[in-house]
C-alpha cells in the first residue's frame, strides 16, 4: 500500500496532491509536461452555466511573494466543459473535482446537477466566493445562512460528494465551516484567495482592470494554515488545503494543520512540474520525518495521540 494513498468522500486518491482550480485550466497545457495520471486529482477551472469571457485585462499583478488575479471565471460554459474538456480528461486515470460557480443559486444547481453526472467527475467543489447577484454582489461565502442553504440545495441535486470552498475574507471562518457542514457538505476546500489590490506608481490607478483581485501564493500560507487549524478542530468532514503550497514541506505543514489532501495553485505558474515533483518528494520526506503514511500527519498540530490511521486507504 502506498504511503500516499488517501480516501476521501468520493475520492480514492493515489496521492493527496492536485492542482487547484483556475491554476491548471482543464489540464491540456500541463499534459505537455507530464502524464496527468500521476496526479491525485485535478480541480478543474470554475464552470458556469453559460460561457463567460471574464474580466478585462490586465487580469494579473504580482505582489511580494504572491499574485493577484481577477480572471472573472472565464470558462467555455457547462456544455463545452462536459463535452470537450471532461471528455478529453477521460483518457487519464485521475478523478476530477469539478469547481462549480454562478451568480444565482439556480446557476449552481444546474451546473452541479449536470456536471456531477459525468463519469470522471468524482466530487464537486462549490466556489462560494462568487458575488451573489440577489444580495447585491455580496459573496455567497460570507454569510453563513446563505452558504448553508446553497450547500443544501446543491447536495440535493448532486450525484457525487460536495466539497465547499471557503473564502478567507470572513470574520469567523469556523462559523462558515460549521454552516456548510450543517448544510450537508461532504468536505471543505480552503482557502480561496484573500482580496487584495495593487496600485501603479506612475498612474496611481489599480494595476488590475477589475481594481481588486484575489491574492494567492506563499504570502497567504500562514493565513491558510491558521484557518485550517481552527476549522479542522470544529468539523467532522475532511479538508483539502491550499494557499501558497510550493513544496513537499508545505504539504506536510497543511496536513499537520488538519488537511487530508492538498491543492497547488499559483506554484504551477512558477514551475509547471511542481505537482509531480512534490509527489516524488513526499515519500522521501515522510521517511525522514518517520511517518509510515501521510494520513498520520493530519491534524498533528492539535491532536494528542502520536500515531493516527485516520483515513488511510
Amino acid at each position, binding site marked *: 500500500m502506498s504511503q500516499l494513498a488517501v480516501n476521501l468522500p468520493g475520492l480514492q486518491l493515489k496521492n493527496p496532491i492536485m492542482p487547484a482550480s483556475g491554476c491548471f485550466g482543464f489540464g491540456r*497545457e500541463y499534459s505537455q509536461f507530464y502524464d496527468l495520471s500521476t496526479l491525485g486529482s485535478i480541480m478543474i477551472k470554475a464552470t458556469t452555466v453559460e460561457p463567460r469571457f471574464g474580466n478585462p485585462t490586465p487580469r494579473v499583478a504580482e505582489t511580494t*511573494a504572491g499574485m493577484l*488575479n481577477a480572471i472573472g471565471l*472565464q470558462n467555455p460554459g457547462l456544455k463545452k466543459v462536459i463535452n470537450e474538456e471532461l471528455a478529453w480528461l477521460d483518457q487519464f486515470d485521475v478523478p476530477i473535482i469539478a469547481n462549480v460557480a454562478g451568480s444565482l443559486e439556480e446557476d449552481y444547481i444546474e451546473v452541479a446537477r449536470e456536471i456531477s453526472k459525468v463519469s470522471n467527475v468524482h466530487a464537486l467543489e462549490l466556489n462560494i466566493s462568487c458575488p451573489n447577484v440577489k444580495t447585491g454582489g455580496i459573496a455567497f461565502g460570507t454569510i453563513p445562512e446563505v452558504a448553508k442553504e446553497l450547500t443544501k440545495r446543491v447536495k440535493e441535486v448532486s450525484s457525487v460528494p460536495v466539497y465547499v470552498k471557503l473564502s478567507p475574507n470572513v470574520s469567523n471562518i469556523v462559523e462558515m465551516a460549521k454552516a456548510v457542514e450543517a448544510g450537508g457538505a461532504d468536505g471543505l476546500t480552503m482557502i480561496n484567495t484573500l482580496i487584495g489590490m495593487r496600485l501603479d506608481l506612475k498612474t496611481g490607478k489599480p494595476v488590475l482592470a477589475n481594481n481588486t483581485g484575489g491574492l494567492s501564493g506563499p504570502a497567504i500560507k500562514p493565513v491558510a494554515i491558521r484557518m485550517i487549524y481552527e476549522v479542522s478542530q470544529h468539523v467532522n468532514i475532511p479538508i483539502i488545503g491550499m494557499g501558497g503550497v510550493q513544496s513537499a514541506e508545505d504539504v506536510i505543514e497543511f496536513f499537520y494543520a488538519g488537511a487530508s489532501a492538498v491543492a497547488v495553485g499559483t506554484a504551477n505558474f512558477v514551475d509547471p512540474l511542481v505537482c509531480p515533483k512534490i509527489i516524488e518528494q513526499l515519500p522521501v520526506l515522510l521517511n525522514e520525518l518517520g511517518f509510515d503514511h501521510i494520513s498520520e500527519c493530519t491534524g498533528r498540530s492539535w491532536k494528542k495521540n502520536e500515531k493516527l490511521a485516520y483515513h488511510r486507504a
Partner: protein
Amino acid sequence: MIRNEECIVLSNQEIAHNIFELTLKGELVQQMNEPGQFVHLKVSDSVDPLLRRPISIAKIDQATDMFTMIFRAEGNGTKLLAQKRVGDVVDVLGPLGNGFPVEEAKAGSTALLVGGGIGVPPLYELSLRLKMRNVNVIHVLGFATKDAVFYEEKFAELGDTYIVTVDGTHGEKGFVTDVIAEQNLSFETLYTCGPTPMLRALEAAYPEKNVYLSLEERMGCGIGACFACVCRTQEDPTGYTYKKVCTDGPVFKGGEVLI
C-alpha cells in the same frame, strides 16, 4: 515542444541605457522554430519576484544552442536579470507562443518591419530569416530618445533602416507612422512589435496590407492555462470568443484581435 531548462549565461551586456543583451545556452534552442516566439524566465531562486517574466527571443543560433534576448531593466524582475553574470543559470520555460510567419513574405517582395522601443528585439531574428529567404527588408525603429537606441547597425546590415526618436535626439523626430508616410515606403507585408498605440495606428493605417502584430499582455502561466492574457477578437467584440496572447499569439494577423 516547450521545455523547462536551466540555461547558462554566456554574456550579458548593457547595449544602451538600461537595455541589456543577454545570451543563454541551452538545449531548448533546438525547439525554437519561429522568430517572434518568447520565453518565460524565472529570474531568481527566491519567491521575490514570484512570477516568471516573458521576454522575446531576439536571435537564435541552433548550431551552438545559443539564443539572445534584449530587455529593458525596469522593474524588480528585469533589474535582477540585468545582474546575471557569465556562468550563472537562468530558469527558462520555452519557446512559447506563435511567432511571425516568415513564409507570408514571398522571395523578392518587400517586408516592412516596424518596432517600438523594447518591441524591436524580436524583429531582429525575423529580419535575418526574411533576408535568408531573399525578402527585401526595410526597418523603421522607434525609440524614446537617443540613449535608448540599440542594434541600429545590425539592422542596417540587413536592409534600409530608419531610426525615429520621440524627442528627435537621433534619426527622425516623431513617431514611426510619420516616417513611414514621409518616406513613402512601399511594401507588401508588415511585421510589427511595440506599444499598443503604435500597433493600433499601424493596423488602422494599412488595412489592405498583410499585417502581423506582436502583442503584450500581463501573464501568469505563459502556457495557456490561467486565462490571464486573453484578448477579444474583432469578429466578436463583446461575446465570449477570445484569444490567448501566450499561446494563440503573441503574433496575430491584422484584423484578428481587438487591440
